[in-house]
């Protein structure tokens, strides 16, 4: 047995032991607040067992292991419906960025440990009503104020902001230069005076995203994580981390095995649907697509482990996976015919086709819309021309509205 197989076996056994307390059955019927409380306990248990910060440096409380161990654990963890998603953003982007760019090492270490234990949650304040796909078009501003800064403006689509203790934020510090050059990256205390969080109810009925308003929120200059005017580079570094954090070949929807089970259990024209060529074709093509993505991710992890830089093909993950999840979910509902109407807004989108389907459009927009991702692939990888860009080289405050 390879070391990695041994690691997998041990992790799987530990995860199995957590199922009675934290698995999907144990979580049924809980309110979000009760669920989050359980989730914090689960995160703490992971930390105590050595499964938090698997591939993070030991000096920050991580395990100092490789990316392969991390994906191995994640793959096993995904099988049980544990409430790990509350910490997905926090531990996915803001905390790694804090480790890389935070200036006060003692403060950073304390935050990282608390986040790893599930005691604190971080959010990522990027999108704005006027700047979603156009990240550099954001308008929330920070103006110099004594030794620090004063933030005013509005962010939107901020996941878990209502439960967050801190956030990382990109704001405009200079409107007189072209838009990419006038941005600065800070961290901000979400409990500070002037911060207002308002949850947004999404199509599936849940409210994990929020509008966040900043009214004269004062921060000191040691909150700054980039040079003044150098925030865009750190924002891009954050998004690059996200590219590999946010990988799930199922597109954050149900595992293909669930579709196979459904097709075996459903009758179509008097025969099991699994015998129907249309159904078989979809299973086969989805499998081929998902196995391709898994191989891309595995290769990327192996490259990082070997100290190499992964290829750009990782940018395909969300684009390909979420689109196909949307279609497969439609087919799964179709397949159930008049039995397909039921909807439970508490059902997990990883286990329930209807929930997966109704939330899929969110997935095709969040973290870069399909169109933005296609543009990125076309322009950055294939060298095709940029779209017409009237904002290019123009000072932000002179861009035609």
């Amino acid at each position, binding site marked *: 047995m390879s070391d990695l197989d041994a690691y997998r076996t041990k992790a799987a056994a530990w995860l199995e032991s957590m199922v009675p307390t934290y698995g999907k059955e144990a979580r049924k019927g809980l309110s979000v607040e009760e669920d989050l409380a359980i989730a914090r306990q689960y995160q703490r248990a992971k930390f105590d067992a050595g499964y938090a910060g698997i591939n993070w440096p030991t000096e920050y409380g991580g395990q100092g292991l490789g990316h392969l161990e991390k994906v191995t654990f994640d793959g096993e963890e995904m099988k049980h419906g544990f409430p790990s998603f509350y910490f997905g953003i926090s531990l996915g982007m803001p905390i790694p960025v804090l480790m890389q760019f935070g200036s006060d090492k003692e403060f950073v270490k304390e935050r990282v440990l608390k986040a790893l234990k599930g005691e604190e949650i971080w959010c990522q304040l990027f999108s704005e009503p006027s700047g979603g796909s156009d990240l550099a078009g954001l308008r929330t501003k920070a103006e110099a104020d004594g030794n620090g800064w004063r933030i005013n403006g509005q962010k939107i689509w901020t996941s878990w902001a209502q439960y967050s203790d801190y956030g990382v934020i990109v704001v405009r510090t200079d409107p007189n230069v072209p838009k990419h050059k006038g941005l600065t990256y800070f961290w901000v205390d979400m409990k500070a005076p002037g911060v207002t969080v308002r949850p947004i109810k999404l199509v599936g009925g849940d409210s994990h995203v929020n509008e966040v308003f900043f009214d004269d929120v004062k921060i000191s200059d040691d909150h700054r994580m980039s040079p003044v005017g150098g925030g865009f580079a750190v924002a891009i570094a954050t998004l690059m981390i996200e590219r590999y954090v946010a990988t799930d070949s199922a597109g954050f929807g149900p595992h293909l095995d669930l579709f*196979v089970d459904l097709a075996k259990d459903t009758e179509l024209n008097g025969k099991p649907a699994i015998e129907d060529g249309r159904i078989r074709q979809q299973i086969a093509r989805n499998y081929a697509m998902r196995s391709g993505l898994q*191989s891309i991710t595995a290769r990327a992890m192996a490259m990082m482990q070997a100290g190499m830089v992964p290829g750009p093909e990782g940018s395909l993950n969300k684009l390909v996976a979420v689109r196909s999840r949307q279609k497969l979910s439609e087919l799964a509902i179709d397949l159930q015919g008049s039995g397909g109407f039921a909807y439970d807004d508490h059902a997990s989108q990883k286990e329930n086709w209807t929930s997966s389907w109704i939330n899929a459009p969110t997935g095709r927009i969040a973290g870069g819309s399909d169109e933005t991702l296609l543009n990125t692939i076309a322009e950055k990888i294939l060298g095709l*021309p940029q779209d017409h860009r009237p904002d290019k080289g123009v000072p932000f405050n002179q861009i035609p509205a």
Partner: protein
Amino acid sequence: MSILYDEGQQAIATESRRVLEARVNKDELLPLLEVTGKYHDGFWNTAKEQGWTALALPEAYGGLDLGLVELGLIAHQAGRSLSGAPFLTGSFGAAKAIELYGSDEQKAKYLPGLASGETIGAVAFASGSNALPTLPSVTLTDNRLDGTSTGVAGGLAADIAVVYANGPGMPVLVVADLTNVARNAIDSFDNSRLYADLGFAGTPAETLVVGGAARDAALHVLALQAVITAHEQTGGAEAMMEIARDYAVTRRAFGQVIGAFQSIKHRIAELYGFVELARANCIHAASREGQADFVTAAAAARISATEAYDSASRDCVQIHGGMGVTWELGLHLHTRRARSLAIEQGNLLFWEDVLVDRLTGEAA
């Protein structure tokens, strides 16, 4: 086996690409379409000279003892340059069938010639729409074959063929000498693949495997060939994507290069997705040779590579507009090859069923 190519493997890819780009051009390939029975002998001579025919065969029989990963890298380049003679897969498949299931005498008799490229092998499993028929149309009686194998790739030039036959009453995998076999040339849309119906009439054949094991063996050989073909398809798809890209950044319309239009740039970006998924599945499948999930991985590679090559050749021609469909540009060489490779080694429908059978643990 690692899923990252090591330095030696990368060198194989670079060198085979260099050699093929220097020796193959479309002006040699286009005339092959207009006659029946000619293949690109420049490619085959190169393959022999470079040792590609010996690459994945055992050292004891004149091979180089490398594997699917290395041969796949060469197939990828052959697909890019469109040169690949059908023997790259057929001779390899025949040799692997003999290596895996033959006696020592059979290996000694056939493998050195197949490794050097002096013997050309073919694989004849299909019967019309069935890639692996339940009841093969060729029958074996007293070590002699009778009946017809349809659409055998490389069939016009092969010296020997590994044939899936009816025993009778049970399937058998045999190796047949094609010296006196009737070869009915198929005038094809991709003539350089040398498709032929092979008419067996009392043709001497040596048995490799008998009974239920013969079907498993045939599927395994088909899977080995499918992985090589999938690499070739991915290479072709990659070439089409790059040709489309290069055209889109030079051709101008409405005052700008056409690659600036999202209808064009997104189409090419989508092709990138097809190509990279196919490549990833190919690398994975090649690395799973000898593992329990090899056929599953081969099927996934084959499905995604077929989708990639068809999509890329279709869209590349579309992006070129009228020029795309001319003999002058020769893009149709890829259009043709995309379809011929889609049928060789079992079509998409076949591999989809194989894959779903494996995933569900039962056949439809």
